[in-house]
């Protein structure tokens, strides 16, 4: 009789253990998904800030048409870029380069540089670039935690049974590794 109780107890423990492990895996996988969509949120935020910036600069630096046009063009191609990472990285790079050009411009126009609106936008864009970078970092950290739990011992068994698959890290595309050019 007691032997039966012990066996039932052990099975119950195993089941509970299994539930705990499964829940952990689910939570980690969801964190990875959330982190991935976070990156897009921040990228979109950056794109949305640009029209404002262009308008502000236009008021002070009307004859810098080239630079302004480059920014607008880069923004449009970033919005229209196809979903694959390589094209997006390229569009991203062009946008960063055009923006840097624009901010370098402001050095020649002290009125623009002192304009509160411009300063606020500059701060916002710098902060948003930081946020994009942090979002990517958080995504990679979440993938690390998820992959770790997939591949370490007890959870390893469940992972295969319940079709949890390994995720890829976010890596900078070769295009993104080039430093954007700023010309004076």
């Amino acid at each position: 009789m007691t032997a039966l109780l012990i066996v039932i107890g052990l099975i119950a423990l195993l089941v509970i253990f299994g539930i705990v492990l499964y829940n952990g895996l689910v939570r980690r996988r969801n964190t990875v998904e959330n982190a991935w969509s976070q990156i897009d949120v921040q990228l979109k935020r950056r794109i949305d800030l640009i029209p404002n910036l262009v308008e502000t600069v236009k008021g002070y630096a009307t004859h810098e048409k080239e630079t302004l046009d480059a920014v607008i063009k880069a923004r449009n191609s970033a919005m229209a870029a196809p979903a694959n990472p390589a094209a997006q990285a390229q569009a991203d790079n062009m946008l960063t380069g055009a923006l840097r050009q624009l901010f370098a411009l402001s050095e020649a126009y002290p009125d623009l540089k002192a304009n509160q609106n411009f300063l606020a936008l500059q701060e916002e864009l710098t902060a948003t670039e930081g946020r994009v970078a942090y979002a990517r970092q958080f995504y990679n950290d979440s993938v690390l935690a998820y992959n770790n739990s997939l591949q370490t011992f007890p959870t390893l068994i469940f992972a295969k049974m319940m079709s949890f698959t390994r995720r890829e890290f976010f890596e900078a595309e070769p295009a993104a590794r080039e430093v954007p050019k700023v010309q004076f």
Partner: protein
Amino acid sequence: MFDLIRSNKRRSVALIASFVVLLCAVGAAVGVLVGYGIAGTLFALVFSGATAAVSYWKADAIALRLSRAVPADPEEYRRLHNLVEGLCIASGLPKPGVYIVNDPSPNAFATGRDPKHAAIAVTTGLLEKMNRVELEGVLAHELSHIRNYDILVSTLAVTLVGTIALLTDMAIRMLWWGGARSRRSDDNNSSGPLAIVGIVLIIFAPLIAKAMQAAVSRRRETLADISACQMTRYPPGLISALEKLRDDSTEVRSASTATAHMWIEQPMSGMKGEGKPSRFHRMFDTHPPLEERIELLREL
């Protein structure tokens, strides 16, 4: 970096465990000398625990009121809010309340019982003196305190210190007034070497406990430094900030010994102008010396 974090956490656990051992030793000593060892320890633990629980629960409100912190206006302190938001994305933490303390000395603290009820405060002096990456490093350090539940850890430490202090206090009083009782009963080992050890322990335990609490605090500060670098992936930011703090010599006016442990840098040190303080003094520092912290981060 991850190894350092793990080893720091292990050392914190070891410190808290030795705290508990000290408490048991004191409880046993009290039991041997005065009687009511177990009951006394339990009473002291419950009382201390209750007061600590209240302060833990309301940690954020208490700390902010004590330092006269005001909420930071999002428009006026745009950069501060942006940096905090960026770091919250990097760490997956919810955004804490952001506060300002009007004080020329550069310093910052974090408080709150868990990441959902947390707050960070910086002094106006810090905002003036630090550039963007340095400010980010300091904020990452404070956020790491929140992420590592350091308020909980230091509340644990404070509870244990309080328990030991209460217990030894009661024991000394009972020994003083009712010492005759223990001398009369024959089945207590209340004479000889054990009694002397017990008395010595009771007298010095509060001091030892305080030193242990300071050790726990130092360990968590180091952990926060390393966690901050892991969050920003940019050690030079925090290193530069710590170097600026080291070279700055204004003191925080709105701090006191009660709140000293929360700030990023020791608000009142006995160090300025006197050269190195005595080794004994250093045992009770809540923060490791700035030089040491800078050296450790450089190795990362």
